[in-house]
């Protein structure tokens, strides 16, 4: 996964970058499966590898900018910023519960109720679904609204003018 990411950084051919980002998503999804997050994997596969890739290709097709301009190899300002951020994050991890530790607070505070009582309180055997739709159904409403916003937003930004308007615009561009 890391290798893919780094290659995305190096490559200038945007098509390749996009394809690699698809692969990156697939790998991420695989890791999710390994870490028991099947629903997430499901979504990541559909979204990251599918929707996002297709959309990016579409954009690329529309912009016709196949390759990226050549830039200086390393920009130090951003790099140092990134390193600082990374360092803070690593620093932050030092006190974290270890990976997979069943006694971590994450597993002992709120979540147990979902696991223990979801079946009797909500019903569906898929606990993620019951959290998603019932316990935290409001978040999902928000999520739906976000999707709605994005779709309408794309429509607003790119919404096609009808033929007549398009012709007129073209004439203006020509002059």
């Amino acid at each position, binding site marked *: 996964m890391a290798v893919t990411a780094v290659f995305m950084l190096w490559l200038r051919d945007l098509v390749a970058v996009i394809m690699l980002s698809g692969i990156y998503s697939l790998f991420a999804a695989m890791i999710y499966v390994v870490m028991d*997050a099947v629903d997430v994997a499901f979504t990541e596969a559909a979204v990251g590898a599918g929707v996002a890739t297709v959309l990016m290709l579409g954009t690329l097709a529309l*912009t016709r900018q196949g390759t990226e301009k050549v*830039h200086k190899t390393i920009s130090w300002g951003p790099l140092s910023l990134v390193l600082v951020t990374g360092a803070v994050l690593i620093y932050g991890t030092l006190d974290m519960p270890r990976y997979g530790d069943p006694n971590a607070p994450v597993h002992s505070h709120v979540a147990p109720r979902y696991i223990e009582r979801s079946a009797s309180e909500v019903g569906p055997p898929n606990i993620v679904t019951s959290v998603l739709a019932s316990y935290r159904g409001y978040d999902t409403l928000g999520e739906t609204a976000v999707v709605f916003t994005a779709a309408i937003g794309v429509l607003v930004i790119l919404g096609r003018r009808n033929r007549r308007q398009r012709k007129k615009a073209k004439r203006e561009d020509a002059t």
Partner: protein
Amino acid sequence: MSDVFPGLLNYWIAIVLMMVGFYIVIAQGNLIKKIVGLNIFQVAVFVFYISMGKVKGGTAPILGEGIDVYSNPLPHFLILTAIVVGVATTSLALALIVRINTSFGTIEEDEILELEHADDAKEETS
């Protein structure tokens, strides 16, 4: 397979990925690549979240017979939402890129900046 990554290694990998993505976002001039970087960044954060939900020896939080250790479903749900938000952002960003390309004729940040300055100058003198 989870035994391969002991301790904090998992988080660190996620962090390295995050930083690669973050670097792409802030250092690269191509707008599409910026968005790709943003995706890398976000996915890395998702991995980070999912990592914390994992319980050693647990399995996917779908109730079944004879299973009593489940991984934490809450991070899964959170990331589910976050992924959706992420793709929504991506699609909006891409739409913007298309429009930027039609009106500026380029999707390189520095060229856009130059054109913007030209616009500013025009505004001042007009």
